[in-house]
């Protein structure tokens, strides 16, 4: 759709603002929903903003075991999250940056984030964080294929290798078709795992030795920890956009599209909140099966498209 450069710049501006400012909202929303479901009053929706503000003013404490790599994790997580956000289309049909093959870069950017987080966890020499790191990489090895098979399905349907096209221009024949549903189902599982939500992980308790992500950041404090939390929320947003992208209705009016996008994100947050409150965490041994289910879903999606 032809658009004036003005509106285009506007769109890009909005895109960036959304990532930077709105992402902490999602965890707040999720927690609120969980509290309500549990019949509690719960923290305010803006709680994460307060936390970040406080943490950025706090002093950080470093273990004497650590090296500069200890900081690389949080920093990498945020930087990568923001860069990746530039590749995903939000409300408006095109991401700020798009080129053939950006989808691969998108996936590998999160790989980079994981690499750095794991290293900064191992940097402390704490056996607990080592354990968390081990689980992180183990489960990621199962989440990765699901993500890529989903991409494969979308790429085959749209004949494009750019996220903008794959997500925003899937074409009517594909939208709400069986394959897409399967892909989204698979990705929903990936979403849970990557963002360390129940039933894979529990973002709230820090001392559970059965946790994955949170245990890796035990030793972070102050600004680094703020980065950790912020990075996590950005990840929630970006992957959320990936998840809702294909189903969004796209028509000529960009502002309508943006509205739809925000609503969809909110719905996603609510859904996650509900899921977290009605489900219990899996035992570690069951998590792989859960992820394999995701891989199978996306694989079937691809095969369905051939028939």
């Amino acid at each position, binding site marked *: 759709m032809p658009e004036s450069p003005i509106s285009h710049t506007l769109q890009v501006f909005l895109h960036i603002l959304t990532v930077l400012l709105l992402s902490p909202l999602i965890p707040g929303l999720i927690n609120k929903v969980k509290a309500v479901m549990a019949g509690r009053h719960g923290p305010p929706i803006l709680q994460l903003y307060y936390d970040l503000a406080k943490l950025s003013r706090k002093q950080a404490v470093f273990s004497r075991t650590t090296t500069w790599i200890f900081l690389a994790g949080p920093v990498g997580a945020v930087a990568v999250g923001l860069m990746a956000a530039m590749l995903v289309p939000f409300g408006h049909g095109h991401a700020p940056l798009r080129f053939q093959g950006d989808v691969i870069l998108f996936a590998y950017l999160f790989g980079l984030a994981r690499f750095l987080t794991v290293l900064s966890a191992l940097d402390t020499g704490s056996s607990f964080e080592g354990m968390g790191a081990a689980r992180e990489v183990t489960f990621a090895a199962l989440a990765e294929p699901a993500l890529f098979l989903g991409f494969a399905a979308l790429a085959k349907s749209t004949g494009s*290798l750019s996220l903008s096209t794959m997500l925003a221009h899937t074409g009517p024949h594909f939208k709400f078709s069986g394959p897409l549903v399967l892909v989204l189902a698979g990705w929903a599982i990936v979403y849970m795992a990557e963002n360390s939500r129940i039933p894979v992980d529990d973002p709230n308790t820090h001392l559970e030795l059965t946790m994955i992500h949170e245990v890796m950041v035990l030793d972070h404090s102050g600004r680094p920890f703020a980065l950790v939390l912020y990075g996590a929320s950005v990840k929630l947003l970006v992957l959320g956009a990936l998840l809702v992208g294909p189903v969004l209705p796209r028509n000529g009016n960009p502002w309508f599209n943006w509205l739809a996008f925000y609503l969809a994100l909110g719905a996603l947050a609510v859904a996650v909140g509900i899921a977290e409150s009605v489900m219990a965490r899996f035992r570690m041994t069951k998590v792989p099966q859960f992820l394999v289910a995701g891989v199978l879903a996306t694989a079937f999606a691809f095969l369905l498209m051939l028939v």
Partner: protein
Amino acid sequence: MDAAQALVDGAAGVAPMILYLLAILFAAFSGVPGLFVKNHGARIAATLMVASALLGISAAAGVLLGGPVASLQIHGTPLVSWGRLDFDPIAAFFVVPVLLLSAMASVYGIGYWGEHQEGARALRFFLGLLAAFLALLVGAAHAFVFLLAWEGMALMAFILVMTEDREPGTRRAAWIYLASTHTGTLLLIGGFALMMMANGSFAFSALPPGFAASGRGTAMFVLFLLGFGFKAGMLPFHFWLPPAHAAAPSHVSSVMSGILIKMGILGFIRLVSWVSDPPVWWGGTILVLGAISGIMGVALALGQHDLKRLLAYHSIENIGIILLGLGLGLIGKSTGHGSLQVLGFAGALLHVWNHSLFKGLLFLAAGSVAHATGTRDLERMGGLGRLMPKTAAAFLVGAWAICGLPPLNGFVSEWLIYLGAFRGLGLSRWAFSLITLGALSVIGALALACFAKAFGVVFQGEPRSDGAAQAHESSSAMLVPMGVLALACAAIGLAPIVISTPLNRVVSTLAAEGQGLPSLGSLAELGWLSAMAVPLLVLGLILWKWAVPSPRLKELPTWGCGYIAPTPRMQYTASSFADGLVQGMNWVLWTKVQSGRVRGFFPFPRRFESHLPDPVLDRVADPGLRGTAFLLSGLRFLQAGHMSIYLMYVLLTLLTLLVWMVV
């Protein structure tokens, strides 16, 4: 040689050829002065090797940037036929990593292998010869020159692996390597014989159309596949590789893993350049074997405790990735899909460069670690990041790159192969693309896990042994090569656009007769990668500045989650880090575990050991050879020393022949 006259198309082609020959000479003689002088032999050798690298790379640059191709006719063995050297784009492309890495290795040798340590002279001498043979091999355009360089390379490598021949393990590893490489050579001889039958000369030239599909063509492909696969370390012919790489001195390992096994890939590339109409199953076979090698390689790597064995298995994994690209390209060639062809071949070729850069870097860093701690056992390391920060940084760059993470070079080549695979999804042979995608994603994730383990266990946390606690940073002679290689990794990663011209040049030589190929730039917008990488780094720096506290606070111990007396021994070990994945893949890996169950409230001490044997070497090849030898030694009774029996052999032979003659 009677005489060697150069038949060069265009006088301009002479210059690269002369530079190339000079580079070979320099490399070959680099170790010679060291045999006679008392000191500084290593420095002289390093200087000569660097000079040879400069010569060779400048020659290669000329050809790769579009210069003319030089060809040299040699009166080879008059009994047989002529020899020929072509300094064509393929040769130029491969000669770059060969000479660069050899030079770096020999600089590294100054610090790594003491001037008066046993075997220092021999080590330098044969390292130079190895480099020379490798450089000769890439230019070989005639079966005899090829086999000559091939065997020369193999033997030099064998002697280099033998450097520490006082250890029985080393002798065994070297023998396994020698046996495998010789088997491979015999297979190649068969392959070349068939090639000769096809186009009537031992000189490399395009095979007649239709030959590839014929029975002989099939036999030739199988022979070449096995012969080159042995050298490349493709599963299931990889078994010589881990022991050899582990046993050799580290800079030799870096040369072997970085370039020697790539000569198998060179062979495949040459083969591709000869056939205009490969059957689809060629590419399919290579691709599937690549997928298997990649996944099995990284899976086996996860279970290793020996740092160098771990890296060796990762070489197998990367060979797998290269083969995936080759297979895609080959399928593209046989189905006539130019885009698939370009992306597959370009990805494979670029990964050849990349892998030689970061794997060379990793082996050098591993060598420094082994040198500093006196062990290769991961479980006895830890905390080296603070003791040897430069080495740690180098290893980190290597690990970052080999995991294919942006913005380093490993990502670029994998990205190209991914692009090819994604494009292939829309084509008729989509299944192969799907295999490629699945394999690459799994390999990527597992490699990440493995190198997180390697880096974390070796360089982070607290030292697990006294050796690790007393480690020291390596000398500058060892650090500089690592720095150079790391910079090269970063350069290709940040500005991949620079290598698109060479890649185009090489890929175009792989096109079939009269086939126009799209340019790489039109298929893969390499510029965007730089456009993404730079902001990423800037953003990271800004955040870093923001996050780093000023002033840095007093330091406390790591929080023990309430546990009072943590010791370094309690850190998460390499085995336990990889345990989840290894257990998950136990159905192919068959880990050997000796452990005692812990039960009761106050359990007695228990020891736990896990060991991951090589599925081919330890479960098939070794028992097979032993069994055969045992059976054969059962025939010893044939010569029990009794004269009468011996005379009876003569009599029986005579009677048999006479009867056979009559009837």
